[in-house]
């Protein structure tokens, strides 16, 4: 069972470098450990044994932005918090991705007022929006898997162009 059977005892695999890099990125994507509101509870539930997000290579929540690839914005971002969020994003090493979890992070949700940012895409570029108030753990995991699909399609030359 598993990869040994398919490979036999050849000890060698051929693949494209791009595929290998993207495969390794998707299977060890470390999210940053922070939550802003009630969505964070669902994020914790998605991490815990019932839903077990580590099946998708996300067993490590890093408490430091310098060690993480993925920012899950779980909750509403107040306008006072926005510069802090941007600073955390800037401290993450490339390549990095952002998931806006829940309605508040995606578009402000029910809070259309002076205090709440109308979607985190005003301060950081977002890859995947997850709808729900709050989204169920399945929905978050679906968002993560959707992000994996996106990352698997990444081309080196596009990434180089982007970073310039």
């Amino acid at each position, binding site marked *: 069972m598993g990869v040994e059977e398919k490979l036999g005892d050849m000890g060698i695999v051929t693949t494209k470098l791009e595929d290998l890099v993207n495969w390794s990125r998707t299977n060890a994507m470390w999210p940053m450990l922070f939550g802003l509101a009630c969505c964070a509870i669902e994020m914790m539930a998605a991490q815990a044994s019932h839903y077990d997000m580590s099946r998708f290579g996300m067993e490590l929540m890093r408490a430091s932005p310098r060690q993480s690839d993925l920012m899950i914005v779980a909750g509403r971002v107040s306008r006072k918090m926005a510069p802090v969020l941007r600073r955390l994003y800037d401290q993450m090493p490339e390549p990095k991705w952002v998931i806006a979890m829940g309605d508040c992070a995606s578009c402000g949700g029910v809070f259309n007022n002076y205090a709440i940012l*109308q979607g985190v895409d*005003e301060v950081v570029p977002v890859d995947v929006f997850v709808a729900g108030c709050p989204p169920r753990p399945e929905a978050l995991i679906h968002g993560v898997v959707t992000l994996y699909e996106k990352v698997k399609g990444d081309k080196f030359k596009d990434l180089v162009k982007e970073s310039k």
Partner: protein
Amino acid sequence: MDKKLEKIVQALQESFGSSIEEFRDEVHVFVKVEQIVDALMLLRDKYEFELLSAQTATDYYPQMTPRFHVIYQLTSIAKNLSVQLRVPVNGDQPKVPTATRVYEVANWRERELLDMFGIEFEGHPDPRRILLPEDQEGHPLRKDFPLGYEEPQFTFNFDEIDLRKPYAKE
């Protein structure tokens, strides 16, 4: 009204000529802006109202002038009483003398009122912002402050609004 409270309210009426409102056993005593510190002093020292349990404000624009009521909710733990003082003030930049010399706890509450209503407290030891970000303009709890800043996008005007939406660049 509570019998013990009745005497205190009468004393307030005699010294400050205040009017009274009652709502479900709660007493609101209206005090003029220049008398508020004296009224608080009197209640604290003579009638044992040792706690300023809340200090807030309400904006009654456009129904009422003066538009703001600054509200002091006082509690007497010794006598198990509570009374509310209200100070009506008007104008775009209303000024009220600070209560920090009577109740130390008024310090942060008055800073909050400065933030949210733009009510200035004269003689406040530390009149800085407390809640809002530094670049916030206007006072959000005033009734003439706009409710939100996002325009809802529908199918017919999606692209038009999308053009002027703020998006993050890398």
